[in-house]
């Protein structure tokens, strides 16, 4: 256990040690909170920049590169702009709710970070029902979205809020269901236990991350889609679909309240990505044996960044779904598929007890097949009866 690995833990202990003994738990809690907020707020700033730069590059342009070296201070400029902008509240708005909505959105999302293990011994609170806490806290953001949309007294806002709530409720089901196999096989709701369960090595070198199993891969796939939808990101950004309903429930927000929503959205995305890393990508564990020398928090960060990149990549490529398609996709594809994934996980579990050696590939193929066939047929069913292929004739 290298010192570098534990540098944050040790520093925290050392700093908390300065406080009087009675206040030490409080001091360390405050430290942890401050650290999480500082790190992820910086992350937010960097991600907005990285997103714009990557989007730019994928669209064959530079992206922001004017403020500071390589545009590094762009988030600062944006922040200052947001701060000094006039805060406009519509005349007919419900002023209290309009004011409360961004707060109600942001606070629970920050709370969700309390249970994520960012590295070895780096969990703010190790709750028994960590993942339950995560989802329970996350569900509060729907209320905030409703408050924002309704209090603005704007048609676009109301439509946006309706869309957002319908979408978030629908995708919460596959989101939770896709995590269930992990909980089943780890036998715990505690995120630390789940990470620990992925800490051993198969064949002596490959980490036993959940993603290296058929159900884990499928689970990650389902989880990422549902998390994208939960955080209202493209291609599921209907609640803010700017070409249809301007900015949805954010239409009447400006200035720092808008910035808070923006922050909440990104931090929610981070929480989702962090949970994805924890559940499927082995948390802070190294991928192969022999790489444990790198600090655990670094591994977490790398995987986290990879997932964020995936989200940005999808945003650059995909257009938006329509509301009915989105809901159909959730209820007729994602939910059944995540239920199927439960079966796959069960099959994986039982075939694990097969006595004969060399069964690993058979087991893999079997379980993967168990997922792929429903995947194919559900997708087919979702699209409906296929029309005959299009033919384009040419007139001379």
């Amino acid at each position, binding site marked *: 256990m290298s010192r570098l690995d534990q540098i944050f833990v040790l520093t925290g202990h050392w700093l908390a040690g300065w406080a009087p003994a009675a206040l030490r738990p409080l001091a360390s809690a405050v430290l942890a909170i401050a650290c999480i907020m500082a790190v992820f707020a910086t992350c937010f700033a960097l991600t907005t920049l990285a997103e714009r730069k990557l989007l730019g590059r994928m669209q064959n342009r530079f992206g922001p590169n004017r403020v500071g070296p390589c545009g590094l201070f762009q988030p600062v400029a944006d922040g200052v702009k947001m701060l000094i902008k006039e805060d406009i509240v519509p005349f007919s708005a419900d002023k209290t709710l309009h004011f409360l909505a961004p707060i109600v959105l942001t606070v629970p999302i920050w709370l969700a970070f309390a249970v994520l293990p960012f590295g070895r011994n780096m969990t703010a609170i190790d709750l*028994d029902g960590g993942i339950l806490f995560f989802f329970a806290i996350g569900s509060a953001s729907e209320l905030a979205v409703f408050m924002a949309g*309704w209090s603005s007294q704007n048609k676009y806002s109301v439509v946006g809020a309706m869309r957002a709530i319908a979408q978030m409720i629908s995708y919460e089901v596959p989101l939770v269901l896709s995590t269930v196999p992990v909980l089943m096989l780890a036998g715990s709701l505690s995120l630390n236990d789940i990470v620990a369960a992925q800490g051993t090595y198969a064949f002596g070198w490959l980490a036993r991350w959940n993603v290296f199993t058929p159900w884990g891969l499928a689970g990650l796939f389902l989880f990422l889609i549902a998390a994208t939808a939960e955080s209202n990101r493209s291609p599921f950004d209907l609640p803010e679909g700017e070409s249809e309903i301007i900015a949805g429930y954010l239409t009447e927000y400006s200035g720092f309240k808008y910035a808070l929503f923006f922050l909440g959205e990104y931090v929610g995305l981070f929480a989702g990505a962090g949970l994805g890393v924890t559940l499927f990508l082995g948390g802070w564990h190294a991928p192969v044996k022999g790489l444990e020398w790198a600090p655990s928090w670094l591994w977490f960060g790398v995987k986290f960044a990879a997932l964020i990149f995936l989200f940005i990549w999808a945003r650059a490529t995909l257009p938006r779904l329509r509301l009915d398609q989105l809901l159909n996709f959730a209820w007729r594809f994602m939910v059944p598929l995540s239920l199927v994934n439960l079966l796959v996980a069960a099959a994986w579990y039982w075939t694990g007890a097969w006595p004969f050696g060399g069964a690993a590939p058979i087991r893999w193929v079997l379980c993967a097949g168990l997922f792929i066939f429903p995947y194919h047929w559900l997708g087919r069913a979702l699209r409906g009866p296929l029309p005959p292929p299009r033919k384009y004739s040419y007139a001379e």
Partner: protein
Amino acid sequence: MLNEIIFLLCASLTLAGAVAAMMLRNLVHCALCAAGAFAGLAALYLQLDAQFVGLAQLLIYVGAIAILIVFTIMLTRGDEVRPGASIASPLWWVGLPVGALVLACLVGAIMASPSLLRLPAGAVHAPVRKIGEALMNRYVMPLQAVGLLLTAALLGAVAIGLREPRDAESKTQ
């Protein structure tokens, strides 16, 4: 001492939320206050170290039921406030005996409960694992029954939902 303060805070939040949900004119405000009361209740559970119940309360009541209420209000457009109308319904007095009856039932049940006779044990710890084990062993049949019921409800909902687009299509054509 700290515990008492937290308890008082949570309790007052719950009560204030409940009272506001009853008294406010605006339906949406009422629904949101009810959500606040649910959250306060969840906090009370958590303070009692009943993690699972507290989190489930949050997940189900704040995350689902409050949203359901709010959604219903939005869909039925119940956000219109009639100025000057009383918030009490004309049959408000019916509520009195009902309320009294419920209170009597609750008090009776609590007073009759054997748990009052037991000493409040310092470390009643009910970790999620234990709840899970209980559900999977002793209460497995009820759990399965509930699961079946919910599945049936889900399928029913899907069946109802599926019929709609065809109607819509026939309407437009």
